[in-house]
């Protein structure tokens, strides 16, 4: 909490906060997601992916499908918050603000073959990889049909062996070494699979991040490290997490490229991750793609973000709402009009409604099964 008397984490941030100026890690004012990527100063080693233009070379059907996933992830996330506030869902981890980056990344992969290692903000990616709204809602309400864990793990810890979504731990970055293992196995067996390993900028402070990147670099593994930099690790701003602007700058130290991309520009992410995946498939090794995004909601339902960021800042970022941006783009290129948008919205609403109803009607796990799945045969 910013207090009058407590020591300031840094003068610039604290001063900005008290003055009511948007605290953009010391920058004077917020303008756009890539504003703080200081290309001109020559301090960065990562490249900056260009903003997308037009339809990104994709057909309108695909663009609408992408849009539908962004809208579905958003609607589902909002419904989960509502259920939580109504006392019907115990816990929410929100991914609002990350959706376009995740849908762009997911569509850049081979969804029938590749492997993803999501973390807890990656609802949109998991939907793209085949989880349904119903699956998600079963997990949120901890019902018996929860395909992730049968009500054993918290919500937002996605996992489906069938869909090649690798189950992960609550401990940030611990999935990154796993990704080097899934990529190593793919390379050893020649499956052609690329592993996409997702994490936040806070996770990049962990030893697991370093150890995974180092191992992946040494063995030129087919892995894409996908950093969703939303500028806060719960309450800690990026300026207290690292002394550099871009997590992607660190890739140079592991012997592979780093790319910074505007994570609110779905098609820019799609292209950046697509290039990284193609590089991995050619046997040229890993890439670290850093998508600059913003988390619109508190970290979880147990967090009050008013204690560490101004609502002006949140409002300013709303101008880069990835859902709205993508919708505007689709209208601009003629892939979406009022009618198709309404159709998609109605479909999404119906899907969320049906998922909620199904989950609320589903039984809780049978208490007699609480010790199942500890060991083989158990």
């Amino acid at each position, binding site marked *: 909490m910013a207090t009058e008397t407590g020591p300031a984490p840094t003068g610039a941030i604290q001063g900005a906060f008290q003055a009511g100026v948007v605290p953009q890690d010391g920058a004077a004012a917020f303008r756009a997601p890539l504003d703080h990527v200081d290309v001109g100063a020559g301090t960065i080693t990562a490249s900056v992916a260009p903003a997308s233009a037009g339809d990104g070379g994709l057909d309108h059907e695909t663009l609408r499908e992408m849009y539908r996933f962004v809208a579905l992830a958003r609607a589902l996330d909002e419904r989960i918050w509502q259920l939580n506030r109504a006392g019907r869902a115990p816990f929410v981890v929100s991914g609002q603000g990350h959706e376009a980056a995740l849908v762009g990344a997911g569509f850049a992969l081979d969804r029938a073959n590749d492997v993803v290692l999501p973390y807890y903000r990656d609802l949109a990616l998991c939907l793209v990889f085949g989880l349904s709204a119903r699956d998600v809602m079963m997990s949120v309400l901890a019902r018996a049909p929860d395909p992730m864990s049968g009500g054993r793990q918290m919500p937002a810890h996605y996992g489906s062996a069938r869909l090649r979504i690798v189950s992960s731990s609550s401990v940030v970055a*611990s999935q990154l070494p796993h990704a080097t*293992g899934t990529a190593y196995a793919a390379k050893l067996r020649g499956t052609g699979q690329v592993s996409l390993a997702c994490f936040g900028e806070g996770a990049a402070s962990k030893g697991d991040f370093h*150890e995974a990147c180092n191992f992946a670099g040494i063995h030129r593994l087919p892995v894409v490290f996908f950093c969703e930099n939303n500028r806060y690790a719960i309450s800690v701003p990026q300026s207290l997490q690292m002394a550099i602007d871009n997590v992607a700058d660190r890739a140079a130290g592991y012997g592979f490229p780093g790319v910074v991309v505007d994570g609110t520009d779905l098609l820019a992410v799609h292209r950046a991750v697509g290039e990284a995946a193609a590089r991995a498939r050619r046997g040229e090794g890993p890439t670290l793609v850093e998508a600059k995004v913003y988390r619109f909601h508190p970290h979880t339902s147990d967090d009050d973000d008013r204690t560490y960021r101004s609502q002006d800042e949140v409002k300013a970022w709303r101008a880069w709402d990835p859902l709205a941006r993508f919708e505007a783009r689709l209208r601009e290129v003629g892939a979406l009009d009022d009618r198709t948008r309404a159709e998609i919205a109605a479909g999404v609403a119906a899907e969320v409604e049906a998922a909620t109803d199904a989950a609320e009607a589903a039984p809780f796990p049978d208490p007699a099964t609480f010790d199942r*799945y500890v060991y*083989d045969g158990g």
Partner: protein
Amino acid sequence: MPVMTYREALKTAMADEMERDDSVVMLGEDIGVYGGTHVITDGLLERFGPKRIIDTPIAEGGFTGAAIGMAMTGLRPIVEMMTWNFSFLAADQIIQNAAKLRYFSGGQVTVPLVIRGPNGGGVQLSAQHTHSLEGFYGHFPGLKVVSPATPADVKGMMLTAIRDPDPVIFLEAGALYGTKGEVADGDATVPFGKARVAREGTDVTLIAYGRQVNLLLKVAETLAAEGVSAEVIDLRSIRPFDAATIVESVRKTHRAVVVQEQWRWFSVASEVAAVIQEEAFDDLDAPVERVSGAEVPAPYARNLELAAFPSEAQIVAAVQRVLYRT
């Protein structure tokens, strides 16, 4: 049956399984060209190549995590810890991931992973290379924990470990790498969860695992000369745990002494004593005695190290107490 060292038996099991199953790979520090700091993997790089014998960077959490990722996608990795002390660097991966992934995936994911290396002391490496972690790892559901004491068991249990669909903590008796014994050729697996009666006797049951089993066999000889018939039980497996063999023995001898190198509090010996009092209370003629390592970090100097670990004299004294001969 051929006679070989504990070290050779261990390597034989892993090499045989790598021949039989090409999904078995090995990761660890210095296991390739160098052949392992304890010379366990010597020659395996030449036989199986660098794709399957992976010399890793010094990053226990990283390579254990990589092995978990491999295991989740169909490989059967064996991770060497240079010493089990270093596994603390990988504790999150082992305890929070390997042990919980099956449960937290509702049974979708299996982690057929073996983590192996020298456990315990006795070779003057002091406390940052000397730890007995059977109680620590035995605490966590989702892990299997074994501690073979003989060349035959280290081979047979390694074969079982590699084929097991769950993560196995394979605690080798580092001080016994050079000891010799008969080892059956071929597919001589030894199941988990089955203790071994290493010596039959009628007056007192002595229970241990790992290198303390050999100490107990010496003590049993000494006691025999004094007219005491000691039964020696080698637990072999910490989790799953074979209570039946212990209880059966105590019903016969009515007395038990449990010996371990690890510290006394919250330990395997404590668990054994609890199991005996739960399941054989009416058969006991004396309280169960525990002989444990002293509550100090393992020291370096030979005489200090000897003072910190269970001795023959301490065990004999405990036996005398349960026999009321003091």
